[in-house]
């Protein structure tokens, strides 16, 4: 936080990739930032929110990514510099606007920070967003380290302003979420005022605009030819060159060093991956006979480069290309040094330099100490109770009802944490969208009840049109909104129901139930911790037809537990009768909250007080009433 504000040009500080992007925006004099939270992009906007007052930046958490992008574009059209940050799925939400704002053009610098999540560590998909740049004819920058994350962001604003186009900056989880050295630049004096006086209409002159867009892209290519973010390292007349970009740069350097090939293999590092700096690349490939292309996920650079090589066949001759297509690099999943070293070694006929001979053995030994763990809800998480209630109601109903899932913490309800209740998961809003369709299949003999679960933030983000659709088409769907009071999965950013803005200041709220009422659907609001009542009401609602909404409202316990002292629970082991109970260890085995453990010595249940947040739900479920509040009379 302090480092973001430091006005000490030339000072080197440790920064997270997302912070470096934020700092780059600050050094470019960013005025406006609108985003929707999403891993790994969230910290860019959070960083800017922390210094919003200091640098007079307007920062908002928008309802969804396309709204964020449009809002940021408005600032650009008024002559300001604007940043919009999102994860890969957000780009898809923005796609419609992206494919028109490219034609209509922009004014002040507008940067879209697109943060991909290779290996889908915190995502519902693995996606390489770089294709959007080619698709939308927009310039694409790929920072390869923390310094570049900052410097490229600053430059992206200039570039955008010069071209009159949004500029896409692509990061990946490993860059966004790790830390490295960044040399700070100067903090600018901000002088811009907002004024709108142009015409930005896409459509009427779409073809002419498309022609102009291609010209702008050519202009970008010319700028890229001399960009300092494209460079070559290695021997002067290397026959073998690794062409790389983004996170591949550091892995490639490590791989070359690990195999001791510094004198034989060169590395051509490209920072501007669309459009390609063709002359720069041709110049560096003139004496080369083999290239290995190292990039993360799709063969984006690889395919574009192959087109260039084909076009330049006369000049460059025949070059052997290794990469994803040749099978030397996996085209899915996160890259790492091992993968790149293996690729390079196999081409060069080398054995990868062995680690300590016993490394693998030791690693296996160490693994044995790590207990196997399934993804689970936090202790005190309201979703556990909600999903138990849903499971119970569906089982009582007995018509093979099922749950269509959505994106949020509750997505892990597809696994044991949520008793395997979620049967579909796609993109945000898809749960209610799918349920809409299932709810109209009765004429084809379909009589299974459908519950669409949806988080509160997801409701505002993407679910409302589908709910309206369910209403007007009278679809048989029960929507259960799991309202935990914020965008919990990404770190509890506020949403339209939270009552505060990105800076934590009070803001008006838009109530979920009011929206539902306005749409004209029956809506009930209940506390999932009152499990019996929740089950009964869900069961009753399942018996009805048409669209219905149940809001299970209970604040995320991670937040609740921080804000106020929680009650301490314990198992009265004189009441718990262990395996004689007949409950078959319901609390620790089936309800499965990590706060409840099995006391091997006593052969009874026990609360892990280090982990328990004191929500008390288990106490209502124990058949012996053995789980008690400390200090309370039994």
């Amino acid at each position, binding site marked *: 936080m302090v480092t973001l504000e430091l006005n000490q040009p030339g000072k080197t500080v440790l920064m997270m990739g997302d912070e470096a992007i934020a700092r780059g925006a600050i050094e470019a004099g960013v005025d406006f930032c609108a985003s929707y939270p999403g891993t790994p992009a969230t910290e860019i906007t959070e960083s800017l929110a922390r210094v919003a007052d200091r640098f007079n930046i307007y920062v908002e958490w928008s309802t969804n990514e396309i709204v964020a992008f449009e809002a940021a574009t408005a600032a650009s059209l008024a002559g300001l510099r604007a940043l919009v940050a999102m994860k890969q799925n957000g780009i898809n939400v923005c796609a419609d606007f992206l494919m028109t704002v490219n034609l209509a053009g922009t004014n002040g610098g507008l940067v879209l920070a697109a943060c991909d999540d290779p290996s889908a560590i915190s995502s519902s998909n693995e996606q390489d967003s770089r294709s959007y740049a080619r698709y939308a004819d927009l310039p694409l920058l790929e920072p390869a380290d923390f310094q570049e994350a900052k410097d490229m962001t600053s430059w992206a604003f200039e570039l955008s302003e010069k071209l009159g186009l949004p500029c896409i900056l692509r990061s990946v989880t490993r860059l966004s979420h790790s830390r490295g050295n960044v040399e700070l630049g100067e903090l600018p004096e901000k002088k811009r005022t907002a004024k709108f006086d142009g015409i930005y209409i896409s459509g009427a002159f779409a073809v002419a605009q498309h022609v102009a867009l291609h010209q702008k892209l050519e202009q970008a290519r010319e700028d890229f030819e001399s960009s300092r973010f494209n460079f070559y390292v290695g021997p002067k007349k290397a026959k073998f060159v690794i062409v790389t970009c983004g996170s591949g740069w550091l892995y490639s350097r490590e791989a070359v060093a690990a195999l001791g090939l510094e004198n034989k293999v060169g590395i051509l590092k490209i920072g501007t991956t669309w459009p390609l700096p063709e002359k720069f690349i041709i110049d560096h490939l003139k004496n080369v006979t083999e290239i290995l292309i190292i990039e993360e996920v799709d063969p984006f650079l690889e395919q574009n480069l192959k087109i260039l090589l084909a076009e330049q066949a006369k000049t460059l001759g025949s070059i052997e290309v290794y990469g994803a297509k040749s099978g030397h690099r996996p085209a899915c999943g996160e890259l790492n040094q091992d993968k790149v070293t293996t690729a390079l070694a196999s081409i060069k006929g080398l054995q990868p330099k062995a680690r300590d001979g016993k490394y693998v053995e030791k690693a296996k030994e160490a693994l044995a100490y790590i207990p196997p763990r399934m993804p689970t809800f936090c202790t005190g998480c309201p979703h556990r109770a909600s999903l138990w209630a849903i*499971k*119970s*109601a569906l*089982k*009582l*109903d*007995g018509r093979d009802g099922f749950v269509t899932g959505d994106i949020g913490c509750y997505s892990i309800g597809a696994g044991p944490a949520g*008793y395997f209740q979620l049967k579909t998961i796609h993109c945000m809003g898809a749960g209610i969208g799918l349920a809409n369709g299932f709810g109209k299949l009765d004429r084809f003999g379909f009589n299974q009840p459908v519950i669409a679960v949806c988080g509160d933030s997801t409701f505002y983000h993407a679910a409302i049109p589908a709910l309206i659709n369910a209403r007007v088409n009278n679809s048989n769907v029960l929507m259960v909104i799991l309202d935990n009071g914020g965008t919990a999965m990404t770190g509890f950013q506020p949403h339209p129901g939270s009552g505060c803005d990105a800076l934590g200041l009070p803001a008006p709220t838009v109530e979920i139930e009011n929206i539902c009422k306005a749409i004209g659907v029956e809506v009930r609001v209940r506390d999932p911790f009152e499990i019996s009542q929740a*089950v*009964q009401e869900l*069961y*009753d609602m399942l*018996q009805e037809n048409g669209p219905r909404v149940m809001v299970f409202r209970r604040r995320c316990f991670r937040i609740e537990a921080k804000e106020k002292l929680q009650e301490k629970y314990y198992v009265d082991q004189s009441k718990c009768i262990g395996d004689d109970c*007949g*409950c*078959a260890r*319901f609390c620790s085995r*089936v*309800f499965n909250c990590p706060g409840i453990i099995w006391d091997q010595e006593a052969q009874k249940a026990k609360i892990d007080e280090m982990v328990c947040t004191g929500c008390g739900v288990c106490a209502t*479920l*124990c*058949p012996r*009433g053995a789980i008690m509040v400390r200090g309370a009379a039994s």
Partner: protein
Amino acid sequence: MQAGKSSSDLEQEVFSQDLCTSCGACVNICPYIKVVRDKVAVIEPCGLTEGKCYDFCPRTLTDIAALDKSVFGKTRTDYSLGPYISIEMAQAKDSEIRCRAQYGGVVSALMKYALDTGQISNAVLTRPFDAAMMPASVLVDESNQMAECTGSNYISSATLAKLNEAAKQGKDSIGLVGIPCQVIALRKMQSSKHETGAKGVKLVIGLFCTWALSYKGFSEFLKGKVDLSKVKRIDIPPPPANIMVVETTTGDVRFSLDEVRKFIKPTCSVCYDMTSEFADISVGMVEGIEDWNTLIVRTPAGKKFIDKAKKAGVLNTKSLEQTRLEHLKEASSIKKKRAVDAIQKRTNDKKNLLYLRLSAQEKKKFL
């Protein structure tokens, strides 16, 4: 009773065969089986190979002779009405009780008397119209809490789930009013080797029952016709009327019984017991007489209690005419025959009577 069967067997043999009576015997004894309205389900298999739930169920193996022995100490000689000491007509002396009750008010009067005199400390009763027409089982410990627990209802509530809950709270000396399937389950609980709250039940008043309606089907049927929240009382006047009268705050609505019969729980068709044969005392209507009940005293404990109640002036009694008694026996026998037929139809096997185990003599009479 049969041992070695689990909740999964219960699910397979009873729930999925539409044989659950919603008596509630299997509910509130573990975290896995739940009831909502009159629907009972195993939410998650508990993984145990043997369960009380299975043993207690009135639709798992029920050996009539064995139950006779455990409740009465001897087997029956009357195959129509089961063991009994006396049968007569009775009504509550208190006209106020009679006025609120459907027939003679005997059940209300006896429970009030039992609570007031401390012969029981708690009573598990049914409030016929708790919410949206669904009855609710309630636990009371004073007779002034009984006000709404009067009158007939035609949907069964999970009375024994309430009993199990009461037992968990440590209640004993309990009086219970139940329909035949609930009384059978209660007796199975009492004769089980397991620890159960049913052992604290001191007085069992069984009601006559010919069938119960499924909440879902019947409420959906009524929903289009009356506002469920306004239903005050449901009555089936004695034959030959063949109608159901739904009294609401805005007036009465009548339906042909034929329309309503569609919603009878499938499990009622295999029920072998019309007069709550295993209760201490059984109470029902007297066909053709509105203000009186039939009162069957079955156990010595029941007799002792009724004698005291009579002495205390709680009841008016008079003898039940022979023709009426014959009529009652015939009605009960018809139900038994129909049940056996329905079971045989289900199993498609003359010898396979599902849950029912009959003595050779009984088989001779009803097969």
